[in-house]
């Protein structure tokens, strides 16, 4: 028997009972739509989180002073520091890096006329913007000349600019006072947006050497050496992050004269690690949501089986007749499987459209930028088809094994 003829027969049978067919596929429709929509929303959430982290530079490593283990009780407490000399040594020795940016950060009151703001003032080098993914909106960056001459110049963040200069569209060239010292604004940074934890646009950047000599002074000096809060290192690519991290450990342990048994007195935090941890969590959540949605597909499959069993018993005489005119068992089996497959495929297609529609609505409502993925569509669709096949087999098998004579006599 031709497949096309079988499909035609099945469609005709299903169209004859429109309401029943619609109710039968409802479970599959809801299941597939839920899988597609939830996966789309999950994927959208994942990529929005990862893109925010990636905006900080996903190849970035942050080095800070500090021990990760608690000191042994009774042992003398020796605070850990990160020195300017550590930066120099790292800058000289590290390979596979795209940039290295030391920074010393302090909190000061910054004023301009009657406006004032308590802001972090960070002493930086010329690599800082690149390593931390900042861009200049207006004006120029801090250069090596500013550092050697210890110029009183400042780059300000977008939020700081509006706080201090509410009425001045372009504050470049204007003066601000930090701790009663005049600084000239040489540039304004482009907005990076909030990470949800901190406002990355509320900051003032000054040349590191200017900061040491004029602002931080004694605070930034320990054991006769200049200290740093953080050294940000940007690896040349995602693949070299791990190797750069172990180079840093090696160099810093050597710099700090640590013995084999000593613990590290610095911490390296890895954006890529954070990224993979977070995206791992979100993708697990997405899979979990998808799996819950898939359960409703299972329920839908049982619905199909139920209706097909009813259909088999309603059509017992037809099956008997088909057998009497020469249909083999496999013909009957195939006929009913085609019907359940037609139901589940139709349900799958409607479900995909509905799911994509839900994702579209969620995106239009600006809740989250849902991303319908090809894999989620394929997955839920093939799952729907598999369910149609699986739950169709039993009723079809029952139909195929009816005794023709009894089937013909049934009412």
């Amino acid at each position, binding site marked *: *028997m*031709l497949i096309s*003829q079988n499909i035609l027969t099945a469609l*005709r049978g299903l169209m*004859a009972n429109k309401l029943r067919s619609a109710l039968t596929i409802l479970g599959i429709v809801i299941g597939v739509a839920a899988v597609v929509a939830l996966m789309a929303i999950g994927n959208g959430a994942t990529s929005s989180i990862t893109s925010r982290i990636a905006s900080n530079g996903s190849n970035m490593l942050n080095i800070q002073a500090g021990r990760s283990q608690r000191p042994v009780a009774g042992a003398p407490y020796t605070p850990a520091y990160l020195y300017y000399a550590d930066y120099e040594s790292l800058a000289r020795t590290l390979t596979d890096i795209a940039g290295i940016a030391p920074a010393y950060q302090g909190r000061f009151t910054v004023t301009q006329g009657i406006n004032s703001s308590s802001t972090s003032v960070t002493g930086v080098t010329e690599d800082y913007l690149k390593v931390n993914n900042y861009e200049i909106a207006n004006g120029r960056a801090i250069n090596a000349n500013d550092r050697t001459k210890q110029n009183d110049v400042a780059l300000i963040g977008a939020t700081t600019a509006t706080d201090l200069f509410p009425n001045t569209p372009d504050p470049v060239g204007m003066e601000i006072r930090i701790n009663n010292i005049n600084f000239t604004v040489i540039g304004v940074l482009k907005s990076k947006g909030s990470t949800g934890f901190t406002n990355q646009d509320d900051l003032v950047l000054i040349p590191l050497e200017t900061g040491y000599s004029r602002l931080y002074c004694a605070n930034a000096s320990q054991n006769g050496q200049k200290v740093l809060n953080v050294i940000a290192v940007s690896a040349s690519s995602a693949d070299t992050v791990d190797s750069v991290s172990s180079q840093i450990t090696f160099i810093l342990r050597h710099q700090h004269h640590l013995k084999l048994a000593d613990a590290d007195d610095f911490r390296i935090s890895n954006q890529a690690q954070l990224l993979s941890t977070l995206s791992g969590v979100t993708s697990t959540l997405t899979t979990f949501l998808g799996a819950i949605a898939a359960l409703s597909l299972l329920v839908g499959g049982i619905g199909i089986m139920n209706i097909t069993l009813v259909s088999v018993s309603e059509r017992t*005489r*037809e099956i*008997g*007749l*088909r*057998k*009497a*005119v*020469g*249909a*083999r*068992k496999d*013909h009957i089996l195939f006929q009913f499987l085609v019907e359940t497959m037609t139901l589940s495929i139709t349900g799958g297609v409607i479900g995909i459209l509905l799911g994509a529609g839900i994702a579209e609505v969620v995106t239009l409502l600006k809740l989250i930028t849902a991303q319908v993925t090809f894999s989620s569509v394929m997955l839920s669709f093939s799952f729907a088809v598999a369910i149609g096949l699986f739950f169709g087999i039993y009723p079809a098998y029952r139909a195929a094994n009816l*005794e*023709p*004579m009894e089937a*013909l006599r049934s009412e």
Partner: protein
Amino acid sequence: MDNQSDAPHALIQVVDLTKIFYMGENEVHALDRVNFIVQKGEMLAIMGPSGSGKSTLMSIIGCLDVPTSGSYILDGLPVEKMNDTQLADVRSKKIGFVFQQFNLLARTSALENVLLPLSYTNKNRRAARDKAMQALELVGLKDRVKHHPNELSGGQQQRVAIARALVNDPAILIADEPTGALDSKTGEEIMGLFQSLHKDIGQTVIMVTHDSFIARHTDRILRLADGHIITDAVNLNPLKAGEARRSDAEM
């Protein structure tokens, strides 16, 4: 039709045919050592009250069931040894069924109903269509091919069913109470159709009926009771459809 010799051919050869059903502990002998032969081109009736075994005999002759013991040779084929698939194949090639309730597929045109048996064989579409049109013409429904069963009268529906039974050129046409759901006038017309198929194209026809009036339209009557053949007689004066009336015949 694939005759194996030119001589009158034993189309059906039934030897010691026995069918036992098991109802719990009880054995029911629906058929008990039944023997008979049917030649090609015969028109006969199998008669008997309900419970006589005629339906069981019909389902075995029609290859819908196999006997418990004994042998059944149809057109040279030992049917009693066949499995389900082989039986379906024999039904498809050698048997045409006509039922009391017509058993047409609803929402399906007369032509498509007649095409149904061909959909289980490997005939190409065009040849199948031509064949089905021929069969419909043979039963006088050439102008009703597009009609659905609910647009046809009972007699017309039974004609579609007969066309469906004929479309595979069956060796035997088995009719199970074919007039049971029709009024007597239409029933006579249907009996006339069977008689002309028998006369004009030499179709072998087996009527299964409890109705002696219908049985007397055939040339030979087998009477069954309690699983045995009690008489197997030639009907010397078969009734001609349309000329006899039930009341006259029953005198």
